């Protein structure tokens, strides 16, 4: 397990290094990167270059970083298992960019009392905070704030609105 994460970490460093290179080359436009990768993917058979595989990893990292809102189940403070990989990319990104600062904004749906929801929002944001730190981010890079139910993403008394409101948002500072 430890071996594996070390391996992943190394790949992560590589990805970051390559993405910095890519940024220098093409001003970092994500779509352009995507285009060139699919082009090289179609040229894959036969060609044994390692560039296409790394480029895919790069896309995965970029897509992961583009997801900045993480939703939670009712009454649950742990982030969803499906978001684990995405959050790992966020952690590596912070590790690779020590000057980068983010804010984790925790939210709750309107059911339950307001003060409890304020605390629940913090508990959710702290869950992500701890995961980011375990995976390489530094505590000082991350500020946590809970808004409880005070800033809903969607108003209304529907399950859909409640699902949208139980969330943690990653905000660049």
């Amino acid at each position, binding site marked *: 397990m430890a071996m594996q994460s070390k391996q992943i970490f190394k790949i992560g460093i590589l990805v970051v290094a390559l993405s910095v290179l890519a940024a220098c080359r093409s001003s970092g436009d994500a779509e352009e990167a995507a285009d060139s990768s699919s082009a090289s993917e179609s040229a894959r058979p036969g060609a044994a270059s390692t560039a296409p595989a790394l480029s895919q990893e790069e896309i995965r990292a970029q897509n992961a970083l583009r997801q900045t809102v993480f939703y939670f189940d009712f009454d649950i403070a742990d982030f969803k298992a499906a978001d684990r990989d995405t959050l790992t990319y966020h952690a590596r990104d912070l590790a690779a960019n020590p000057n980068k600062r983010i804010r984790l904004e925790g939210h709750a749906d*309107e*059911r*339950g*009392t*307001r*003060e*409890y929801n*304020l*605390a*629940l929002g*913090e*508990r959710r944001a702290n869950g992500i905070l701890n995961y980011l730190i375990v995976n390489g981010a530094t505590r000082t890079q991350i500020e*946590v*704030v*809970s*808004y*409880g139910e*005070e*800033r*809903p*993403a969607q*108003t*209304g*008394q529907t399950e859909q609105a409640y699902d949208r409101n139980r969330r943690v948002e990653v905000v660049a500072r």
Partner: protein
Amino acid sequence: MRCIFAGIFLSLLANGVQAELSIQITQGIDNPIPIAIVPFFWQGAGVLDEDIAQIVMNDLEQVGEFRALSRSNMLSMPSEEQEVFYNDWRVLAQDYLLVGKIDRATGGQLVTVQYEFFDINRETKLSGEILTGSVTQLRDIAHTISNVVFQHVTGIPGAFNSEILYIVSEGAGPENTLFRLEKADYDGARAQVLLESGEPIMSPSWSPDAQSVAYVSFETDLPRIYVQNLNSGERRQITNYPNINSSPVWSPDGSKLAMVLSKDGSPDIYVQDLLTNELMRITDHPAIDTEPSWSRDGRSLVFMSDRTGQPQIYQMELGASSYDIERLTYDCFQCAKAQFLPDGVNLVHVRRETRQDPMYHIAIMNIETLRTFILTDTSLDESPTLAPNGSMIMYATKFNGRGVLDAVSIDGRVKFRLPSTQGDVREPSWSPLLN
């Protein structure tokens, strides 16, 4: 435009319809006490801005104990004792009668309001007084008269001069919302903005002398506790601890603030001395402890904790060890936001009975008999606050998707809703008795 407005106003008066936004009584009692409140005779020129008799009528009907006689059914309209014929009111089956007159005080801008209050069955005058004030104080004078009537009939001091704090949020979308802390009469009249912000404001709370309010504001991007003086408007940031700073509540003697801080990891209850700024930690548990509320004697705190997995209500003596925490609720999926009635035995709280049914009601539980009484039947009820005379509970709920303030009598028999304003209204906090 002003002419049209004046025209509408006059036509409302002409129809005998009161111009003020009145509270909507959503549930009354079966046998309210019949009372006749005669329009007060105004001896000056022009029209007064406030109809004292109408305000008294609204006050008394809102609390549910009374039903006021319609003006159109009155056989006479006396304004002082000599003009009162008891039989006029006995044939209309009235138990009580209130009459009065308003005059300009000699020489000044002030007015005098004379009222007299009668028991029809005993044919006696129960009370009478002359009150003096400016025309802008007519509402206050009316509420004072309501207090006198209420106390005579029920034996309980009236709370009609009391005020409320509450939060309003307005505007579409998370980025365009405006938050306001407002103060108004208990019936929603004369609302005043105390603070407006683009960031959330939460948890308003009165000092026991009613001179100051404490609240949480996110104006620095982080939740911090502020105290604002209502007379001078001066405000002071009280806390700047890392993480959550919330739930400020004044001790009964006004010297301390109970609050919730998560600076040491998880939200715990603390008490800060307002003079020395000394901070005392009350609870120490990795779960969420929040919503502190003082016992009447100021020696213990009631609070909510989810240490068993779901919110339940606990009580703890100040200075006791954290092992001496007493759990008060057991029979609900979630019980939260508790506050003792003046008897120290009955606990007002927010209750969700089962996991399956996501309904949040205001309830009262007797902590000795464990008997529970659910007071409300709407589904998202929260933030209960007790009237200073202990007779009613105001709370926030949703109506047609918007936050509104409702009130219910502590026996659950009477309910009223405050007049709607713009935006989402919530977190009412009822003042102490004001003089």
